[in-house]
Structure formats: C-alpha cells, structure tokens
C-alpha cells in the first residue's frame, strides 16, 4: 500500500471538506473493497477520509419509511429489529453478504457507492424503490446505478443515508458464488406502493428492473405467471457463469422470490 494522509473528521460536513481539500482523496467506509484495492496498488490516493466518526451510522423507522445511515454495517442491518419487522427481505439480504467479518465492517454506503455488478444491495435499492440521500441532493433508485462500478455520484459527493419505503411484501433470492457469496444472480421481488417491482443484480453491468416480469406479475402475482418469460439484458459472461446461464438463473431466482411471498 502506498502511503497517504489519514483523516477522521467528526461530521459529514467536515468529511466533505477534507475530501475537497485533498489532491486526490477517497472516502473510507468499512474498507472491505477500498483497502484490498489500495493494498494491491490498484489505486494511489493522496488522502483517505475515514467516515467512522462522521455520525453516519444508525437505523430508524418513521411510519412507512426505514432510514439506514450510510455507515451502518451489513451486520447492523441484518440484526436490526426494526428492519427485521418492517422489511425482513432486506435484513435477510444484508445477513447473506459475504461472511460475518465482512458484515461486521462493510457498510451500505460503501456497497452502493462501489456499485459492484455482483453486489446484493443494488437489488434492494432498486427493487424496493429506495432513495439515496447525499450531502448535495436526493437520488432516486432508478437514477443511481449507471453502469459497471458507475453511479450518479459526482466527484466527492457523500452518501449520508438511504431511505426505503416499507413494502407490502418483498423477498430476495440469490444464487451465490460459493467462495465469496457475491451474487451470480440475485433477484428482489416486491409489492410496493408504487406497484410490483422486480430488480436483478449480478447478471449484467449494473442492477436493472425486469419490466416484462413486473407486467406479468401485475396481472397474476404467482411464480407460474413468470413461465416462459426470458428477460433481455446485456448479460455478463465470466468464469463463474455464462451469459446464457445467467439469463436462465434470472427466471429461476425470480420464481423463488415471488414464490416466497405469493
């Protein structure tokens, strides 16, 4: 790892200022992606701005909305009684990320800012129609993920929290990579105030909605309604799974998720 200046600001405002003042700064959340990247010298940042003390952790419920601070760990989401009772599918998704030690450090803000094509949270953000709040604006789920490791965030923009409207029902099914537990394909199906939503992660460059499935489920919310629907996307193909296999898995995982709540 190259050397850098380390900062631990005590507020979100100070964090944004430290990041702005740096020649080539980067935010540090759980470090589960950033530290391996720095260790392998895939990045060389002049300044690392640790968000640990910036007051961005915490989970709360306000009526029909669950709010999760950017620095909330996967473990805190998985074990939160508020999340477990309001959106059990979200608690289960967080509890299925990686391993216990990754969940003890990794955060929701770091996961969605990183926008790994195989990450789990993007399926929840998109499938549950969440809003990503930053130090500058509110970004709708549909506008947030823009490509492989690409998001709508501008340089230095800080995610402060994510708000999830509580759905009537939701379920997440994933076909996990056996070594890392990243999603080869993961599908979040939900009955929301905004209609039926089906969001897919792992399959393509970034998470996307399977609109053909949403339409079929609007008429008949059952796994059988998905028979014969093949979702078109720019599927990834790699050592873990071919594009054709991923296309097939989208159908299987969607049926599992829908079957759980139908």
């Amino acid at each position, binding site marked *: 790892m190259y050397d*850098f200046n*380390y900062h631990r600001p005590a507020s979100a405002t100070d964090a944004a200022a430290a990041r702005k003042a740096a020649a080539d700064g980067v935010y*540090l959340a759980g470090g589960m992606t950033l530290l391996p990247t720095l260790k392998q010298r895939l990045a060389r940042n002049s300044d*690392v701005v640790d968000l640990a003390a910036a007051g961005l952790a915490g989970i709360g419920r306000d009526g029909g909305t669950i709010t999760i601070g950017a620095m909330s760990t996967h473990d805190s989401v998985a074990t939160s009684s508020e999340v477990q009772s309001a959106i059990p599918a979200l608690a289960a998704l967080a509890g299925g990320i990686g*391993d216990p030690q990754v969940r003890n*450090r990794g955060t929701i803000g770091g996961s969605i800012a990183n926008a790994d094509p195989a990450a789990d949270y993007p399926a929840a953000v998109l499938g549950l129609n969440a809003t990503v709040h930053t130090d500058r604006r509110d970004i709708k789920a549909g506008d947030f993920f823009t490509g492989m490791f690409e998001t709508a965030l501008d340089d230095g923009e800080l995610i402060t929290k994510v708000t999830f409207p509580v759905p009537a029902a939701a379920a997440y099914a994933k076909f996990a990579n056996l*070594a890392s537990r990243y999603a080869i394909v993961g599908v979040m199906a939900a009955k929301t105030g905004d209609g039926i939503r089906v969001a897919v992660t792992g399959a393509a460059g970034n998470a996307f909605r399977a609109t053909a499935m949403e339409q079929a489920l609007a008429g008949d919310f059952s796994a059988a309604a998905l028979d014969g629907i093949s979702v078109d996307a720019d599927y990834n193909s790699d050592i873990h799974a071919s594009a054709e296999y991923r296309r097939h898995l989208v159908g299987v995982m969607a049926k599992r998720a829908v079957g759980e709540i139908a």
Partner: protein
Amino acid sequence: MSEQITVTVNGDTVSARPAANTLLSTFLREELGLTGAHVGCDTSQCGACVVLVDGKSVKSCTMLAHQAAGTNVTTIEGLAGDGGELHPMQEAFRDNHGLQCGFCTPGMVLSAVDLVSRNPDPSEGEVRSWLEGNICRCTGYHNIVKSIRAAAKVMRA
C-alpha cells in the same frame, strides 16, 4: 509524522504512531509482537488474521491500525485468563481435536467467540455458515464445529 492513536489491546492501553498505511495485522504483529493473528492470504479471504474489535470479529489484514483508534482489541493472546487458564473456547478446541497445524486456529477461536456471544446455542448448521470466512486446510472442519458447540455448552452453564 502521523497522528498518535490510543488502543486498548488485551486490556492494556497502547499509545503509538503507526504510519497511516499500517494494517492492524502488521501493527499487532510487528509493533506489539502479538503474532497470534496469522496472515494467511492477506486478501480478506481466509480469516486466519481475525481479531475482536469491541467484541466483534474482524479481519485485521483489512483494517488500518488508525481505524482501531479508541477501540478495544482482543487477540488470541488476550483470551486466556490472567493465570494462564484457557478460555472455554480454547479448552474445547484442545479437548475435541479442533486443530491440526494450528494456523487457522486463532481466527477460528475468535470468530467462534463472536458467534457464541450472539447465539449461545448455535446449531451445527449455524456454526458451519458462521465459519464462511474462516478457512482450514487441515481438519475438514468437523472437529472445529464440534469444539464450538462444546464450548457454547460450557459457556451457557
């Protein structure tokens, strides 16, 4: 010169000025001489470097020493009692032949202590899925799972 940090390690207050890019694993091993945290893969996969930070198991190869400022760190060296009597988890690993070469053992034991602190009576399936991040090349895991469930029983009593 980097900032001074204060960390409680195995009950002792430690003040030091590690370089900003010093990993917690390096800090423990090379600056404090606590070599129980083993560096197996150095890529966040194997769990040999697991220590407890404020009671939660973390991979010390994937954390900066500076991120541990103000926390309470427990390494395998700090688990036994002051008189040297083994922690029930260590005792159970010994009694149940839960280790062979011992390389993965400090991480296994500390990961297991985190599990039992949350779940005092884990099922075999719960133990196995909890060990997702701890790799053992020797034992085939069977006796590790047995050790953890035996220790949980002692710790519940």
